[in-house]
């Protein structure tokens, strides 16, 4: 019996069905791309074959100059996320903790939040110059809003009884914030950081494509203006992969999985 049981019990499938579907989607898109590239329906330069893009990607990854630009952009995004994250979180905690402040300020946050931040770029150039300063500023104002709003919402969702427990043990304000409010808000805050990272990347890269002489955004727009399409696609692929990686990393650091189990 035990023997048959072992035979019947399926060894955990090596690949989950959903993974197969995901891989199939990628394969399909790549095949579709290649078919269009070879059909000659569109300009060969606009839709280059995969082999050409692959070669451009290898060439790009071999350039030392590329890593210098990547470093500039990564640094800008990291600083933007740091500054925007800390201020967004602080403002969110204040708004979540005070009904008066929330009612006074939140309407503005809700209206400014979805406004395309690129319209502030000229101002940022005047304030912070054409260098990385104005790119960081764009990243900051992009990620500040989702972080502040999700922190404020997270603060309000905290189970009131947990706050009572803290008060009954006579926790001071600092202990309440660090030991109760922030841990209780971890899931919405990590979510806010993820959204913030996304818009910080958008804000920074967009600013770089508008006016700059450094960074990945600059490389992309440079490749475009010299009509080097394979290189431009190679750069886009790199940005995709790095964004997904950063997003996954933040999710893991925040222990989102652990919260889900709780």
């Amino acid at each position, binding site marked *: 019996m035990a023997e048959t049981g072992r035979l019947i019990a399926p060894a955990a499938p090596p690949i989950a069905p959903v993974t197969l579907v995901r891989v199939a989607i990628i394969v399909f898109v790549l095949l579709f791309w290649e078919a269009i590239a070879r059909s000659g329906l569109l300009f060969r330069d606009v839709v280059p074959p995969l082999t050409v893009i692959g070669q451009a990607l290898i060439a790009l990854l071999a350039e030392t100059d590329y890593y210098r630009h990547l470093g500039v952009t990564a640094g800008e995004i990291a600083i933007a996320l740091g500054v925007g994250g800390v201020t967004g979180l602080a403002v969110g905690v204040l708004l979540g903790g005070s009904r008066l402040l929330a009612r006074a300020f939140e309407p503005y946050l809700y209206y400014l939040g979805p406004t395309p931040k690129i319209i502030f770029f000229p101002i940022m150039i005047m304030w912070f110059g054409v260098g990385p300063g104005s790119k960081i500023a764009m990243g900051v104002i992009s990620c500040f809003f989702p972080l502040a709003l999700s922190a404020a919402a997270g603060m309000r969702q905290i*189970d009131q*009884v*947990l706050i*009572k*427990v*803290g*008060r*009954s*043990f*006579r*926790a001071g304000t600092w*202990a309440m914030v660090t*030991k*109760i409010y922030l*841990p*209780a808000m*971890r899931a919405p805050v990590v979510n806010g950081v993820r959204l913030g990272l996304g818009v910080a990347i958008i804000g920074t890269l967009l600013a770089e494509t508008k006016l700059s002489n450094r960074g990945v955004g600059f490389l992309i727009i440079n490749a475009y203006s010299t009509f080097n399409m394979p290189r431009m696609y190679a750069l886009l692929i790199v940005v995709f992969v790095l964004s997904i990686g950063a997003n996954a990393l933040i999710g893991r650091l925040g222990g989102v999985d*652990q*919260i889900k*189990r*709780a």
Partner: protein
Amino acid sequence: MAVTRLADQVPRAQSAAPILVVDDIVKSFETPDGTVTAVDHISFDVAPGEFLAVIGPSGCGKSTLFNIIGGLIEGYRGRVAVAGETVRGPHASIGMVFQEESTFPWRTVVENVAFPLEIAGMAKAQRIERARHFIDLVGLTGFERRYPAELSGGMRQRVAIARTLASEPKILLMDEPFGALDEQTRLLLGDKVLAIQHQLKQTCLLITHNITEAVQLADRVLVMTYRPGKVKRMVAIELPRPRSSEIVSSDAFGRSVAQIWGDLREEASRGMRDDERHIAEHLS
């Protein structure tokens, strides 16, 4: 007024100086329908080591009283004193156990129980050791590194009790601590609480709407009236100690339950009629 005079002839469990004095508490709330008096001239004492239960129908102001004694509500008339010291805000001598799920889901059992010690600034090694002692007391040894989500509701409530005991309060103040649990778990946890109380000689004040629970655990039971919440009667429970949940089948137990239900029935019916009238008004 006859009601309050009954309370004056209260039997006292012990003659020692009371450790908790609740003196003439009055608390009203402003609501859209006018002023509602939740607690109306409530006074009682708790002697050291005594187990007092406060019982009343829903809406009698029990929870308000709980929050006042715990120092979480201000703006009331009267005085609460612990060991002669007037309570203003949360007090180190009063440990609260809440009705709701109150364990921190992001902390393990031992981290939960060590929380009050952490707030008090105790060194880590020392507070972990102390927390383990109280985890053992509530019978959760072996679960120290588990998260609350991995435990049952009854186990989580024991974590909450251990956490409050870890702060070594003079008075353990509990508001419907087993309210969310099933009857059998509740009886067994009652035994646990009795054993702990016996071992620590812990003074306890239990707020409840459950007659069985009150009689099972308490030395005296204070019956409250429905809105406004006044003292209707203080009933001494003459059951021997140490007790176990087996006494629920004894005659003496039945008599105490019947006596309290006699008082409570009238109040609970008033509460029910009041609720029905409110609903009828809202529907019309």
